[in-house]
């Protein structure tokens, strides 16, 4: 009976995703050459894809395992540079000459997988000693890792300051490697979508599996979990490694989307929204322990950030309101404070969206609201 239900929900999800994907491809075919679609929507989708992957993968460690990691962008940097260097090497070795065709697509997927694997190996190496520590100490180790990896990349002769090209600027990536221009971004948008959906599926499956239950037990009470036979440290390292893999994949997508790499993009903090601190913010905002929440929060953060920098309505505001947007960090802070006041567990808490459960959830939410209303009425009448 239970197996039947799982199989049915897999089928429903696969069908819906496939239908949405085909619809999207048709739309892309229709509007692919239009200015705004090509220049605004598609690049935004690319950025959303890697931000979603990054936030969701951190949620595995932060939300489900309950360990604070402040160096998540370090894994992304490893992924980005790995993918970029492999693609450059392939191009220089003459494996592909023009950026099209089956070979090129295979290389892109190869780069993405290699990026994930190297990030995972690094995650394993960092995780084994680091996860023996708890709480603040782990946070400091991961923070240190994030900073060290940036410096290491800067000083590696073949990738940092003057490897991918001269200076920290890597313009050559666009020309020769897997950096996509505006048109290529439209053509290969499906890669970003497929990779994101696949990775999210893998993460959902992980969370629902016995491993997921084990790490949630560890989060709730480490001693109790250990007493019931869960090998705490190996589960911690496993989750950390698994999470690092997807951060590496996010890095590869970043390399595709950006056509130039600079280590400042993967720092602990910077002026943008892609840094280790903001990933933590996204996870907290969306709800620790809800992958749905991470997805929504990543999209919201991207949207807010994009609108502050590029929205025409911001420029049209009266100057005194416009002043707020001169300090974008304050806007994020206010958003975060408001969310924490009204929803202390994040937007979604631990709720996960599910297509098959959607009708039930809606019914339940209605019932809850009606009950709350009735209660309030009663309270008033008893006055």
């Amino acid at each position, binding site marked *: 009976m239970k197996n039947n239900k799982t199989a049915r929900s897999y089928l429903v999800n696969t069908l819906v995703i496939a239908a949405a994907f085909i619809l999207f491809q048709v739309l892309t075919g229709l509007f692919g050459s239009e200015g705004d679609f090509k220049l605004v929507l598609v690049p935004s989708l690319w950025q959303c894809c890697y931000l979603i992957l990054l936030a969701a993968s951190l949620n595995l460690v932060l939300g489900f395992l309950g360990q604070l990691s402040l160096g998540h962008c370090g894994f992304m940097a490893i992924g980005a540079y790995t993918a970029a260097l492999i693609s450059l090497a392939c191009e220089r070795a003459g494996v592909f000459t023009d950026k099209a065709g089956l070979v090129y697509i295979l290389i892109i997927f190869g780069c993405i997988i290699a990026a994930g694997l190297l990030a995972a190996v690094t995650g394993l190496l960092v995780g084994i000693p680091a996860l023996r520590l708890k709480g603040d100490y782990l946070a400091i180790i991961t923070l240190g890792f994030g900073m060290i990896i940036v410096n290491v990349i800067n000083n590696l002769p073949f990738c940092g300051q003057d490897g991918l090209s001269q200076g920290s*600027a890597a313009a050559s990536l666009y020309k020769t490697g897997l950096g996509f221009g505006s048109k290529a971004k439209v053509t290969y948008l499906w890669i970003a979508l497929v990779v994101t959906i696949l990775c999210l599926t893998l993460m959902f499956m992980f969370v629902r599996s016995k491993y997921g239950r084990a790490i949630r037990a560890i989060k709730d009470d480490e001693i109790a979990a250990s007493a019931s036979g869960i090998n705490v440290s190996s589960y911690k390292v496993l989750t950390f490694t698994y999470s690092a893999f997807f951060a590496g994949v996010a890095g590869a997508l970043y390399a595709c989307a950006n056509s130039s790499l600079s280590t400042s993009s993967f720092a602990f903090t910077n*002026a943008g929204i892609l840094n280790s601190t903001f990933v933590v913010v996204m996870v907290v905002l969306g709800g620790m322990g809800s992958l749905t929440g991470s997805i929504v929060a990543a999209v919201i953060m991207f949207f807010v950030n994009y609108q502050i920098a590029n929205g025409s309505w911001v420029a049209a505001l009266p100057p005194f309101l416009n002043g707020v947007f001169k300090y974008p960090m304050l806007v994020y802070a206010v958003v975060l404070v408001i969310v924490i006041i009204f929803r202390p567990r994040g937007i979604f808490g631990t709720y996960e969206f599910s297509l098959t459960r959607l009708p039930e959830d809606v019914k339940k939410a209605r019932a809850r609201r009606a009950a709350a209303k009735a209660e309030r009425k009663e309270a008033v009448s008893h006055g």
Partner: protein
Amino acid sequence: MKKLFCLLLALCMVLSLAACGGSASSGSSAPAADSGEEAPASAASGDTLKIGVISPNTGNLAAYGTGIHTGAELAVEEINAAGGILGQQVELVELDDRADPTECLNAFNNLVSQGIGLIIGSATSGATSAITGPANEEEVVIIAPTATADSITTEDDYIFRVCYADSAQGAIAAAYAKTAGFDKVGIVYCAGDVYSSGLKDSFSAACAEQGIEVVATESSAALTTTEYTNQFTAMVNAGVDFVYAPYYYDVIGPYVIPQARAAGYDGVIMGADGYDTTPDYVREADAPAFNNIYWTNHYFAGDTSEKVTSFVAAYKDKFGSEPSAFGATGYDSVYVYKAAIEAAGSADPAAVRDALADTSTVYECVSGTFSFDVSGTPVKGAPVITFKDNGDGTIGMELVDVVEASDLA
């Protein structure tokens, strides 16, 4: 009720922030106050000529962006007052990239989707490199005010800049050594830094071309090194009177120069644009050591040429502060566009690109008189500035010489 109260409080906070933001920008000398002016213009911009400006207006490098967009605004105001370009009023569309490559690309895509084909930006090489490829693909012209990495202009056809490339600055220093009559020089540089070692490479290459002999080369390991006595003792022993020492202001002021003088080295010490703002980092007791120090910069605010004095006066008049080198290059970028559009006879990006690619055109700018080389980088000299001890524990600056492009090998 409680929730409503919270919401009200949050709203109050936002509004007070807004008020802070507004008053801070209008009250201080920071010239951000008038960015609201551009907004209404976009509604009625049927005939205006739009130029996009991408600069880091917020974030760590906000000072760079402020310089660039205020410089550009000043130039546009002057041009509009004088009748515009080809009879069209010019309008700037300013976007912020926070010195981040992704944000820079977003801003670029936004400008292109608005149909803007002429863009000024951005300040840093890292951010600018994210848009050079796409600009070539979209056939949009970019003039970078201060992105100095060599690779910025070499890869693509549509990219130009008004500053010299990193590699040219060493050549300018070598040319100055030649004119000043030194034929034996020494180098002290930081081996662990790209800026410093890059300048050392270009300086020694240019010395070879100019026929200057580099008799001693010493290095330090990191930019944070605070001990330079041994390096300068070696310079004294080698008997040189001219040492090229490309470092940043934070070690030049407190360590390099006082220690060099203490080690008995009395000759010339020459540096690059990293020496800018050094006087703020000198201890009072060290001030007498600051003689015979020379360095190259993008422009000199105290320059007495008519072009510079009128620019500095106009900038001070409008924004109340002395323009930085970024202000000068932002200002120049707009005037280079003006010259190119007028030469092309239209503001069509491809035509403007062709006009800019004409290497024989000479642009007379605040940051020097120059023409572009084939890659789109100016062939120009630089002002050589010297520090002088004011006698009261402070350091002054004086323009010594302007190295012209024709002096370069």
